[in-house]
């Protein structure tokens, strides 16, 4: 079976039992969808709750007196502003200011930071971070194999998870976390997610993955009409796209800077030097040449990744992510365009397999949940 060479999370058998259609995602054998299908999984997450296996993500510890200083010099966001129990979205940048990966940085303590990175880039990020250590007093550890991670997302997420823990979930603010017990399992409970809905990401030791997963399905009334649904990679992608979130390898890459990707808000040049900050300073001063925009299809049809974008008959850029948006019932996407065309209302055409279809630049996020 082709899947023999792929890495598997502890939930692999569960995915298959739930009707998961398995695919190779960055070297991992993961479900692209389950028996309900992408659209139902997407809609369940927006209206009730979706359950996601994100155990393939990477976890890197940076511990020691110099942990904050060390991580602060490798990332764009300001680690010194974090308090215990708080996390922030950030980017690892290379010497040219391009993005090595986007990540979450969690502050457990003054000398304890946890970096959570993308699955497909974990090894690359580890090499990058470890190779940048000189004589700082920081111990680095790639602890990816020590964690499973399960995300519960949607308006019902808090209620479902609360049924399994004494930790008062309501008091964990967005982008904050707590350590606690979920159905008797020691866990990190983080109020974060990649869907645009309220929800939590639970980190625990891998041997408890199956237990937690099944308990969450049960508590969430999986199988009942208004129950939780397990959601695969396809729904994960349509959800994050609607919510205006970037995906590494598409909106972000080694050759795309945070400014070009509308991540100026996590780029704190005033904190001091970090890898690539000099180049980013220059880019900020000189102004951007190209920028990420969100678009909505006006002609019938769906734009897809890597398709060419035209303005007035001239090829000017390309689609970084293109897909249907199940909740909005539109076809949307992101594209990287020259700044002069990166304005709301700009009409563009996209070469969709030979047909030039009209689209329009629109504000992002495409979807924002009601608080």
């Amino acid at each position: 079976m082709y899947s023999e060479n792929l890495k598997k999370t502890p939930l692999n058998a569960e995915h298959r039992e739930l009707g998961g259609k398995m695919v190779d995602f960055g070297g991992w054998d993961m479900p692209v969808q389950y028996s309900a299908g992408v659209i139902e999984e997407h809609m369940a997450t927006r209206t009730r709750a979706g359950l996601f296996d994100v155990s393939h993500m990477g976890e890197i510890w940076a511990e020691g007196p110099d942990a904050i200083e060390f991580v602060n010099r490798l990332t764009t966001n300001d680690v010194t502003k974090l308090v215990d129990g708080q996390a922030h979205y950030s980017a690892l940048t290379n010497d040219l200011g391009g993005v090595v990966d986007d990540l979450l940085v969690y502050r457990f303590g003054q000398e304890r930071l946890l970096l959570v990175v993308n699955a497909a880039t974990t090894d690359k990020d580890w090499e990058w971070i470890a190779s940048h250590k000189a004589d700082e007093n920081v111990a680095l550890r790639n602890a990816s194999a020590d964690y499973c991670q399960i995300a519960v997302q949607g308006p019902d997420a808090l209620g479902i998870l609360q049924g399994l823990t004494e930790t008062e979930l309501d008091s964990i603010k967005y982008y904050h976390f707590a350590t606690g017990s979920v159905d008797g399992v020691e866990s990190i409970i983080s109020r974060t997610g990649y869907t645009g809905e309220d929800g939590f990401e639970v980190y625990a030791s891998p041997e408890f993955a199956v237990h937690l997963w099944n308990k969450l399905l049960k508590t969430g009334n999986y199988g009942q009409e208004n129950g939780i649904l397990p959601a695969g990679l396809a729904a994960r992608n349509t959800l994050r796209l609607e919510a205006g979130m970037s995906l590494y390898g598409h909106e972000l890459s080694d050759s795309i800077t945070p400014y070009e990707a509308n991540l100026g808000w996590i780029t704190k040049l005033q904190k001091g030097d970090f890898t690539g900050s000099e180049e980013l300073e220059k880019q900020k001063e000189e102004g951007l040449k190209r920028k990420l925009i969100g678009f909505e299809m006006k002609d019938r049809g769906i734009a897809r990744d890597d398709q060419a974008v035209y303005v007035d008959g001239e090829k000017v850029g390309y689609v970084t992510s293109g897909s249907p948006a199940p909740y909005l019932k539109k076809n949307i996407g992101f594209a990287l365009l020259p700044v002069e065309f990166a304005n709301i209302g700009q009409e563009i055409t996209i070469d969709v397999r030979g047909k030039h279809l009209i689209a329009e630049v629109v504000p992002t996020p495409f979807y924002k949940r009601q608080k």
Partner: protein
Amino acid sequence: MSNIPENLRYSKDHEWVKVDGETATIGITDYAQNSLGDVVYVDMPRVGDAFETHEAFGSVESVKAVSEIFTPLAGEVSEVNSGLNDTPESVNSDPYGTGWMIKIKMKNPGEADAMLSAVEYEEYLTTVS
């Protein structure tokens, strides 16, 4: 288990055909719609377009992918199911009924006889899954 109506003919590309005199109605099978997942868009030809056997006459899009559809019979398009513009999901829910895609006036009546019967298609499916 795949649904495979007895009264239709099938192709190895997972299309079905219903012959009615000189006209053939074409769509994709239950197996095909299940493999594709939720259909969100169907790109169809126009009435009057002509196709040779095995030529791609359109495409079916799911959330993640685009799949071309091939006509198992040569002919000229006489009707197109424009209902699929509004409800592409009919391809999933009713692939042999409201999910039909085009009707063609066959160039070679009798060409459908060479297609697979329901039993033959069912047997064929055991070799592909």
